[in-house]
């Protein structure tokens, strides 16, 4: 396990902690998914699978694998497939894939929320965009 892997785990744990903290205050932003999307730009799929499973392990809230968790786990791998198109500029690719990933997440799980709870979706994506860029900056430094 490399230094960058340890940093990635730290980024994921901080994302989880912040996400649970904000969630307990009624503000939901999926920072773990944002971190995983950023990881997709740095790691090969076997290592990405480990981070995805760590995230699912922490975030899965009931003793069953739900469609929500399956979609959650699939999005970072979709981002992994997209990363080749943004190899020249991950700082642009990560936000774009984050927006697309979150849109796909909401469309797959709760499409009605676009009509009924648009502001909370905007907050969710906004938080994810910020954290994704932070993860990019941290992992880029760890790569050097």
């Amino acid at each position: 396990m490399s230094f960058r892997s340890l940093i990635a785990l730290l980024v994921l744990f901080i994302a989880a902690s912040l996400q649970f903290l904000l969630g307990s205050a009624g503000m939901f932003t999926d920072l773990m998914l944002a971190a995983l999307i950023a990881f997709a730009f740095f790691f090969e799929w076997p290592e990405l699978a480990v981070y995805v499973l760590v995230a699912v392990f922490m975030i899965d809230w009931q003793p069953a694998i739900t469609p929500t968790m399956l979609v959650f786990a699939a999005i970072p791998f979709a981002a992994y497939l997209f990363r080749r198109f943004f190899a020249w500029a991950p700082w642009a690719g990560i936000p774009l894939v984050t927006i697309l990933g979150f849109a796909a997440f909401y469309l797959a799980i709760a499409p009605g929320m676009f009509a009924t709870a648009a502001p909370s979706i905007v907050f969710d994506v906004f938080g994810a965009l910020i954290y994704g860029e932070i993860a990019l900056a941290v992992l880029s430094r760890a790569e050097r």
Partner: protein
Amino acid sequence: MTPERKPNLALLGVLVCILLILVLFQPSYGWRLRAFLMPSDIAVGAGSAASGSAMGVLMAENDQLKAQLAELQGIVAELPTSSPNYLRAMVYSRYPLNFKNELFVNAGGDDGVATGSAVLYEGLLVGRVVQTWPHYAAVETVFDNNFRLPVRIGKAGYDGLLTGGSYPYVASIAKDSPVAPGDIVMSSAPGVPYAVPVGALQSTSTSPDNLFTQGAIVFPYDINQIQTVLIAHS
């Protein structure tokens, strides 16, 4: 962006297997990890919410008394002849994403909890059981977008439909019903004990289609701070 070296596939494979086993067969370790990652004052914060917010307790008690008063004054004849039993359950975790507002509690089918069972906190209806496992159950709260519950309002018991969401409200109140802020909102649905208070009307307005009155509800508790609930069971 490219990795500096090839990942150790054997190690990663072992890690993936261990994580899969944990996710599928030992999810409770994940909940403990969540509790560990959550700041301690939040993770065990129910006590502070319950004890620190004396006003909330008083408001809940006030809502209960209002509901009892309304119940006794207006609808005595409709009272059920038997009262349900309640089972105390601890809240294990909350749905961590934006899609739902659900609680996960440590009582399930083996304890007599059934889908549709009413869930109470401080005597107020906070949700209904939507899914059960032998030892666990998922509770859809009134703050979930999908939550719907027929309710009655005030002493006269005007009908309405509690509509869940970040800001729950009572919809479909007949326009000529003289409901007013402060009126108690109480359950009136099959499978849910009758006249359990949900909250109180905070304000009223005309529905967007101009056909009904609707009312915003004020709740004397913070759903994110609840740690124990009572579940009605057969």
